[in-house]
């Protein structure tokens, strides 16, 4: 196998939904008519405006259409050039942001069927996350159950900023279903914009919105740990996608320290939070927050305290690195194979079944 990282598993690529027209064949008669007569279109998330440079690397943009919209380009650039053995597709569209839970459920279903027919059926190296509408947890579970028999779906996808914190019990049926089917929960950067994107209200600029994603991930981790999700569902894995990871050491120190003093409030958390995080949480590589020098990167990875947490990703077609340098400068050579292959296989049981 050729490529710069042959045999690797890319845990985050983004086929783009070109628009509602592409999903119409996968909607039922009622919703097809609603979409057409009401002129519903352009449900891309505000977190990822396609015109922003970071959301489509220049050499990865097709001549027309959205970055990530072209299967042939994705084949050549995301799979072939890297030598990728399997890549997990995380399609981002407005499902999670819709206020109408019935439409959201129908759209999630359509996206999964579209993904299976237009991408997975045409490219055997692709896998995908199951898109669900957490607005209606019962229907979300039904969608997981419906799609779970297709082993090419390897994960359940949620957004970092939704309606409520993800540890809250309203979401637990989703975790029970995910655990039952051997599907990690992938939490992808992005906001439904149902709440302000920072804890202090709306920022003025995109740069604030973008950088504040890390705080959103921290809030979700605190919620998942302290509400007891990993105690209730010991077989559950959560993958943070596009969260960055250099904030993890300081965050875990803070969580541990606080837990020591006030743990009686949440006695089901019977070990330091960082231990639960190291056991249950995985993080994709790109975008890597750029430490100022190679030595700093190695130090941060060492401080995370686990060589099992990082999962290789390119975040294709988003623009976070030049050329083929998905591994940032200074990434420990001895860790690459683990991040490329071993960790993804250990994280996604369904990948393991089909790749080994």
């Amino acid at each position, binding site marked *: 196998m050729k490529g710069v990282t042959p045999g690797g598993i890319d845990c985050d690529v983004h086929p783009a939904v070109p628009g509602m027209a592409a999903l119409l064949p996968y909607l039922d008669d009622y919703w097809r008519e609603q979409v057409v007569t009401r002129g519903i279109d352009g449900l891309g998330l505000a977190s990822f405006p396609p015109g922003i440079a970071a959301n489509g690397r220049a050499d990865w943009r097709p001549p027309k259409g959205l970055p990530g919209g072209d299967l042939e380009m994705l084949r050549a650039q995301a799979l072939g050039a890297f030598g990728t053995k399997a890549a997990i597709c995380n399609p981002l569209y407005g499902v999670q942001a819709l206020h109408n839970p019935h439409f959201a459920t129908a759209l999630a279903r359509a996206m999964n069927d579209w993904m299976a027919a237009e991408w997975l059926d045409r490219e055997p190296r692709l896998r995908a996350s199951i898109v669900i509408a957490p607005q209606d947890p019962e229907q979300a579970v039904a969608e997981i159950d419906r799609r779970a028999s297709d082993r090419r779906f390897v994960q359940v996808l949620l957004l970092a900023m939704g309606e409520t914190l993800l540890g809250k019990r309203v979401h637990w049926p989703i975790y029970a279903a995910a655990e039952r089917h051997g599907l990690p929960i992938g939490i992808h950067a992005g906001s439904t914009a149902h709440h302000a994107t920072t804890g202090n209200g709306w920022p003025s600029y995109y740069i604030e919105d973008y950088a504040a994603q890390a705080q959103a991930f921290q809030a979700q981790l605190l919620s998942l740990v302290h*509400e007891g*999700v990993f*105690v*209730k569902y010991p077989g559950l894995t959560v993958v943070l996608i596009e969260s960055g990871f250099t904030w993890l050491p300081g965050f875990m120190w803070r969580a541990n320290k606080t837990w*020591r*003093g006030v743990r*009686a409030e949440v*006695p*089901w958390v019977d070990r330091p939070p960082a231990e639960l995080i190291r056991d249950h949480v995985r993080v994709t590589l790109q975008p890597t927050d750029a430490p100022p020098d190679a030595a700093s990167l190695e130090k941060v990875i060492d401080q995370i305290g686990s060589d099992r947490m990082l999962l290789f990703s390119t975040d294709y077609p988003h623009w976070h690195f030049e050329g083929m340098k998905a591994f940032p400068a200074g990434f420990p050579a001895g860790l690459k194979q683990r991040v490329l292959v071993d960790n993804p296989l250990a994280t996604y049981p369904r990948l393991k079944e089909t790749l080994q």
Partner: protein
Amino acid sequence: MARHVVATVTEIPPGARKLLTVAGREIGVFNIGGEYFALLNRCPHQGGALCKGPLVGLVTSREPGRFDYSRRGEMLKCPWHGWEYDVRTGQSWCDPDDVKVRLYKVSVEPGEAVARGPFVAETFAVSVEQDYIVVEV
């Protein structure tokens, strides 16, 4: 190591404590249901006056949302940062193997024995009718 007479038993009824200085060390003596325990008044975390903290129960949980409360008044919570210690063992709850507060051996001796010695009882006039709490420091 010497045996110090620190109090009469009536001075520290169940649930009560006495703070004192023995051989230059600040120590707290606790009565837990009729058993006596002596701990160094210094939290191993950052040196807070541990023995001045509240006595609380042990809180564990079998599942999220369930609070299993036991051993009322047998855990000592540091007034500085809230770390909990088992008064019976000196072990911290959060890191029982590595973070422990120093425990001293305590016994109850009849006044007769105390009067006979050898005990250190600088501040005590010992009466044969009373029982005394003795700490080894």
